[in-house]
């Protein structure tokens, strides 16, 4: 197995699936330029030609409906958005059309569509370039929603998504693009609807989505070192369908559950997990399920406020300590992830 980045894993998947199946094509704003959606679509047009990889006008609504028309006629479109915030312009198609197209045809039509969008934080991305919205998409029956975290997941889940006969929304956190990991070179799939136990542990469960897994892993390491407590981290990976069993089994074992979601809390996926776990682990829970997510505000631009808007490893650590009745560890000298150390100049 080779070690590659998340962006390379995505790129590889697109190439492999387009080679395998001539019905697969890729389109969206900016997919053919020299930046190639943060590198994930570079080289695709050269390899497969302009029929199978092309840009579009700035018309997200029409271009969202376009995928549905192509899909019900046997193609397998992969529609790409630089930011999930732009994808919202196609919300009518998602909620009124994608969701019910098969049902309203009495099962005669199928809509194998992948919509990839970049989510989350960059460098002062502010309120219109930073949403996640997985909770909203997952709320609507007929859609599937996937949040790959590792390069391996990115390839396995995107492969599955492309082969799935339903609309699948794949949301990729921008900071994950640089993450490296071992990825099989050939073809493989990761089922949609199967959670990943990112780290085994017996004392408390953290359910983390997307980038929050990076924060949770750091938190778990600190908690282990400072308190000798083993945190179990479960990444649902797919928001809908949801692998309830893996989550429930973990919480039944540990008796404590924190949900660290990369979205707003109110009516969000963290609420769904908390409601489900509270119901299914009613007897086993020693403390109520706790939730972490975005602040209930639009995302601000300036450094200190943006840092406070997003949930982080430090908050997970404090929550673990609080739930287990531990003393607060001294976190001075700990190194937490900061984009500050990565960014130099423009995009």
């Amino acid at each position: 197995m080779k070690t590659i980045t998340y962006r390379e894993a995505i790129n590889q998947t697109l190439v492999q699936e387009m080679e395998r199946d001539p019905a697969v094509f890729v389109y969206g704003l900016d997919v053919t330029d020299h930046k190639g959606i943060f590198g994930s679509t570079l080289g695709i047009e050269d390899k497969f030609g302009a029929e199978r990889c092309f840009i579009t006008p700035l018309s997200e609504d029409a271009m969202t409906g376009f995928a549905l028309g192509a899909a019900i006629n046997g193609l397998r479109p992969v529609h790409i958005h630089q930011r999930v915030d732009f994808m919202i312009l196609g919300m009518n198609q998602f909620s009124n059309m994608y969701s019910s197209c098969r049902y309203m045809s009495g099962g005669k039509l199928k809509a194998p569509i992948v919509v990839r969008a970049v989510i989350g934080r960059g460098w002062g991305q502010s309120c219109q370039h930073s949403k996640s919205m997985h909770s909203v998409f997952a709320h609507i029956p007929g859609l599937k929603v996937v949040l790959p975290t590792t390069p391996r997941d990115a390839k396995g889940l995107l492969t599955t998504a492309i082969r799935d006969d339903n609309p699948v929304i794949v949301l990729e956190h921008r900071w994950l693009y640089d993450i490296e990991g071992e990825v099989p070179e050939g073809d493989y799939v990761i089922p949609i609807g199967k959670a990943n136990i990112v780290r085994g542990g017996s004392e408390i469960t953290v359910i983390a989505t997307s980038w929050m897994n990076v924060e949770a892993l750091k938190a778990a390491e600190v908690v282990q070192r400072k308190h000798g407590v083993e945190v179990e981290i479960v990444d649902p990976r797919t928001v809908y369908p949801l692998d309830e069993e893996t989550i429930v089994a973990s919480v039944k074992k540990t008796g404590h559950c924190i949900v660290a979601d990369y979205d707003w809390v109110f009516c969000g996926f963290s609420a769904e997990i908390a409601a489900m776990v509270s119901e299914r682990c009613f007897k086993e829970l020693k403390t109520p399920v706790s939730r972490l997510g975005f602040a209930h505000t639009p995302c601000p631009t300036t450094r200190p406020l943006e840092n406070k808007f997003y949930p982080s490893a430090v908050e997970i650590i404090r929550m673990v300590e609080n739930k287990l009745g531990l003393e607060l560890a001294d976190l001075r000298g700990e190194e937490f992830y900061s984009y500050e150390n990565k960014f130099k100049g423009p995009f």
Partner: protein
Amino acid sequence: MFLKSIINEDDCKKRTAMTNIELNKELYKKIYLMRKAEEKIQEVYYTDVMKTPVHLSLGEEAIVAGVCQALSVDDQVYGTCRGHALYLARSKNLGAFYGELCGKVTGVAKGKAGSMHISCPESGFVASSAIVSSTIPVALGAAFAAKYKKSNHIVAVFFGDGATEEGVFWETLNMACLKKLPILFVCEDNGMAIHAQIKDRQNYSIPEATRSFGLSVHSDDTTDSERIYSITEQAVQDIKKTDVPHLLHLKYHRYLEHVGVNEDYSAGYRGQKDDYADWYARDPVLFQREKLKLLGIIGDEIKLMETEIDQAINESTKLALDAPFPADSELFKDVYA
């Protein structure tokens, strides 16, 4: 309940060989079917056996029959919640039509779709939608698929005058022209959106504005389905030859209320019935029946065609009423593939 004689599967191949008389008979049968099928709905609707809001096609028959007559079986159509005529132009399956309206297992979508979402993918009426304008970009994607697969068929999408006010319509025109996709836009302009007149909604002329987006546009207000057939045939040829998307801007008068089975001239939003006397004088069914006569077809032969259709409608309706509802377990089926 299949109406074998009404639509012939290899219509298109035969068509060139069709005589003028055959063509006009075919058109009459379709128009008559559309009219009578809707009148049957008007008849039974008050008994609440059709639990689905209906947007009837009365008045627009010539457009749908004429356009569809010029399409081949491989050509696809997409429609709106006013989709009955389109269904009847494309599908021979009358049983599945009434089954759907009655919400029965025999319905084309097992009763899930009802009137507003009716379609018949197996006959090339792929989808309809009750969100104004929302099948327009879907048809765009279908046209792309046709081109991608190098099939030689085209896609026709039907919509009302009101649909042109949605931004997605203009987005779609632009992309269609840019990518030179084989698509025919059919604007069925009845001058109304629910109860709102076009002058209170549009500051543009549909033909002019769409032309400025690069389409070839043809306008007409005929109720002669043969004429519409010819216009469409020309447009289809042009699309295939020039790769330029076409738009047909066709006017008609909506006979009934927006949704439901009644006349509502008394509501006052668009004048009295008399104000539309010119339309009624040119009623598509009357017009086409007269034309058959002019072509020398005798009353008896016409009566025969009509009777066959009347019977098929009556039998299909009865079958639909007698058919069972879907089982509760059907609720959870076909959400995902």
